[in-house]
């Protein structure tokens, strides 16, 4: 179990307790965080769970795999800190993670 802070496009802050192994996308959907539509349900297809990882957390969260990288390259608003929330599984070392939601 870890606490994640999601900050939406308007600056609203959502805190969620997310269980180990559950993805950041699922944590956001469970808490109805705006901008995480997760249309494909976590299959790394639709890119509707685009988030930015706060700089201090990027090394701990890690880099996207090849499929996720290639998907992100075609997404609007890509930054070096971009990730798809459905591809990040929660673990205790991510306790306190802060992410910004890319879309409205």
């Amino acid at each position: 179990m870890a606490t994640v802070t999601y900050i939406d496009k308007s600056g609203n802050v959502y805190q969620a307790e997310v269980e180990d192994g559950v993805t950041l996308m699922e944590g956001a959907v469970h808490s109805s965080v705006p901008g995480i539509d997760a249309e494909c349900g976590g299959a790394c297809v639709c890119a509707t769970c685009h988030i930015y990882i706060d700089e201090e957390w990027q090394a701990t969260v890690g880099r996207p795999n090849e499929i996720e990288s290639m998907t992100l390259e075609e997404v609007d608003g890509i930054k070096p800190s971009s990730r798809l929330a459905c591809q990040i599984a929660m673990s205790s070392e991510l306790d306190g993670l802060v992410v910004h939601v890319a879309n409205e």
Partner: protein
Amino acid sequence: MNNNKKAVIVGGGHAGGNLVIALRKAGFDGHITLVSDEGALPYQRPPLSKSWLNESVTLERLYLKPAAFYDEQRVQVMLNSTVERIQRNDKRLLLADGTALEYDYLVLATGARARPLALPGGEFENLHCLRNLADAERLKAQLHGATHLAVIGGGYIGLEVAASARQLGVKVSVIERESRLLARVASETLSHYYQRQHQARGVDILNRVGVAELKSDAGRLTSVVLDNGVETACDLALVGIGAIPNDELARAAGLQVDNGIVVDHQARTSDPAIFAIGDVSQRPLPVYNRQFRLENISNTLEQAKIVAAVLAEQPLPADEVPWFWSDQYDIKLQIAGLGIDTDVDIVRGDPASDKFSVFRFCGDRLMAVEAVNSPAEFMLGKKWIGAGTAVDRGLIADASVSVRDCAVLHS
């Protein structure tokens, strides 16, 4: 503005579930009632033929939204409830338990059911179809411990289950009537690629054969007899030969039905107070300029947004290009568009490298992109199909040219 209107949704699948979410997101603040004949809140179906079969995942993780969402959003959910009849003159639904529900807007999201094998012989406890959670739970319980699975029908559901079964060490035979897998829905290049991938992992693929007879012993299927005389022993079987729209309620109510409930660009049926979305709807697809009955997630999402916009009196969303995906083994397939009326397929990349795409054209027009482990081609292809962007066929065939540089730019 809408707060006295009553919206009743029949069907708790992806279409019905996404409509609830979309209605509130669009600002519809009237009453919402979701009537589902299933026992679970709306859940993700795609994993049921994929990872879910091999993993232990709680039901809650499949939910589109947690249970609390429906309370917070003032949505009345009626599970295990079957609709008997629509009384259009009174704008009223009658449920099997005698309950009557009044509506201002009725949305039929009743989905489709598995097409049964056209064979006498009845039901067997180890013969399955796969449409919903109840089907999947029965299949999963028997798949773990099975020795030989017979898959009847080489479509996506059958092939995804075949892949999951192989990963569990189960022997698999796929029986396909056509000369190739995915014959109605994929290019030849993609069909042949999947045939090789499954064969390389030990799946026995039988093409150009039909099922002549099912043999059983004490209520259990024991073998499938093919119409060429070959008999395939099995202790588990899955039938995946397509789906039939659940349009009976609409038909009985006198709505226009033609292989699904016929709707317009607002997802409205021939009764202006009644809408139909998802697998059950026969809908116009402006990008392709014709009517279709689609069975995919992107269709349910798009039509949910359309109905939400209409009911919330918002502008209609932009037309979308259908999209689809399949996960088999470690192969990610993504498809943008529909491969209809295609006359030329251009293959980009080498299928032997497990990273390639097929650009499917009708004349000069790009109709569909099949992308294997190639998300950029999928994402760009979807944009190009929607925008009607011309694609240079010579460039797209050259995988050393960046896919972004393959669109023909108008000066």
